[in-house]
């Protein structure tokens, strides 16, 4: 057990060193920020999808809830933006609690219901009738507390939290119980596992990470609209990154996000229409031929993937 913690610790340290060091070599902070954002989101999605098998297509709903939760706390309650990040996480968990009954569904039904829930949330938030609280469709302005550097390091903190969480789950009895739920719910419950409780905890942890990410994203962006933080692209990107890297591992989603998001930036910005085609084909190919991602290639070669 302890033997397996060291590789995970190594992965966390490498990632931290990378994002501490890179800003002094590479000046495009916005790219590094977004890269970090997707690394953290990928690990957050990994908690629910990688370990329990529930695929949340509406994962962006938690991201948006986090962005708005913290923005409302900062603008209306005048909380400092750093504390506001925590409020964003809490807001996402509250949405997660409301959506817990969705976990009674499985497979595609769950994915679609969750997608619908995130869209419902989007339309509620962007409703002009709520202008006093959410500013409706006109967007949020946080420029009074804008601090790009602080937000950058806050996100690094969120990323470390997400990685440590996944490393802990992967090496604990709790992780085993989540994997068992993914394999066979009946067998898991006859082993004494309280399935409803275990999957709800995983669901809320996953929501919490996305909420923190959304909150920091809002802070970093200073001005954002409902259509930005509830954009389905966020769900799709995160899912593709996790699938590509390998679900249920710590390093897989990190590698997936790192490789594909970098590619997106270097190819996708100039010719976005081809890139979407490429992504669509990639999802199909992954699901058909490599459902466990690039991590499974290494595993076939008897390499332990942390």
């Amino acid at each position, binding site marked *: 057990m302890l033997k397996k913690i060291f590789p995970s610790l190594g992965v966390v340290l490498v990632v931290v060193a990378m994002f501490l060091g890179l800003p002094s070599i590479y000046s495009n902070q916005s790219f590094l920020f977004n890269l970090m954002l997707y690394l953290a989101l990928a690990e957050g999605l990994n908690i629910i999808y990688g370990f329990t098998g529930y695929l949340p297509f509406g994962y962006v709903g938690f991201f948006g809830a986090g962005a708005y939760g913290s923005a409302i706390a900062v603008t209306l309650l005048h909380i400092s933006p750093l504390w506001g990040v925590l409020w964003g996480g809490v807001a996402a968990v509250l949405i997660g609690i409301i959506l817990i009954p969705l976990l009674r569904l499985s497979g595609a039904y769950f994915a679609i219901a969750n997608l619908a829930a995130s869209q419902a949330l989007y339309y509620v938030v962007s409703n002009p009738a709520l202008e006093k609280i959410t500013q409706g469709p006109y967007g949020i302005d946080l420029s009074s507390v804008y601090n790009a550097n602080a937000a950058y390091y806050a996100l690094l903190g969120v990323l470390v939290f997400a990685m440590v969480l996944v490393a802990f789950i992967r090496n604990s009895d709790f992780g*085993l119980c989540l*994997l068992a739920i993914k394999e066979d719910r009946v*067998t*898991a*419950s*006859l*082993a*004494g596992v*309280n399935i409803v409780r275990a999957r709800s905890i995983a669901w809320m942890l996953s929501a919490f990470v996305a909420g923190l990410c959304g909150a920091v994203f809002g802070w970093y962006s200073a001005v954002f609209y409902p259509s930005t933080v509830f954009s389905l692209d966020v769900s799709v990107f995160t899912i593709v990154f996790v699938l590509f890297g390998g679900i249920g591992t710590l390093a897989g989603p990190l590698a997936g996000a790192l490789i594909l998001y970098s590619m997106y930036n270097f190819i996708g910005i100039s010719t976005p229409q081809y890139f979407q085609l490429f992504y669509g084909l990639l999802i199909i190919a992954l699901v058909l031929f490599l459902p466990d991602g690039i991590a499974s290639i290494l595993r076939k070669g008897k390499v332990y993937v942390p």
Partner: protein
Amino acid sequence: MSHNGKRLLKVEGLVKKFGGFRALNGVSIDVCEKRIVGLAGPNGSGKTTLINVISGVYKPDGGSVEFDGKSIYRSPSHKIVHSGVNRTFQIPRPLAGLTVWDNVRLAAVYGCCEADKREIIRKALEIVQLDGLKDFISGGLTFAQQKLLGLATALATRPRLLLVDEIAAGLSHQELDWIAQMLLRISQTGVAMIVVEHHLGFIDTLTSDVVVMNAGANLFRGSIHEAAQNEEVVEVFLGR
């Protein structure tokens, strides 16, 4: 004979409907501490459904189930497991992507309150003689080995009542004998059992207390030899 010792399980008038079909239609059965009860009956008589309802896999639609004086009627499976009941499956359903050790570890960690988990896992694997395969991925085991793994997993939750669903189906004669001896040894450690089986010879080596079910209700209780003399029992097995 069936009322020696304290009554551990008491099922009365249990009903389970699937749409308009009553798979269980008022079945009653009781099991005393440390005793083995054989459960026989033709295909579709509701034996496996009864096991599924007692273990919480299906929710019943009427009647009562008491274990050790407390109602476990419509309880979720994990609570039933914690109260001291577990079962095996006719068609084994291991956690196929996990190792043999992790399958049993899950049960020892979540289903059993004793502190020394390693010892519980080791003992459970030793009883079913899978200790040599503990690092194997359970999906790669043979059908018979997966059945044994199911038994080990159930044992790791330290049940006082074990529901064994057709563990002998599809096994060879030597394996049958070997499994019968294993179940007897488990029973001697103080575990009560309901053993569902088509193979009447197998039941006969385990117990002289047999319940025969037909059409979702109990038809007869007594020894195999008495059952063979009973006209109704002969009729449901062989036809008129």
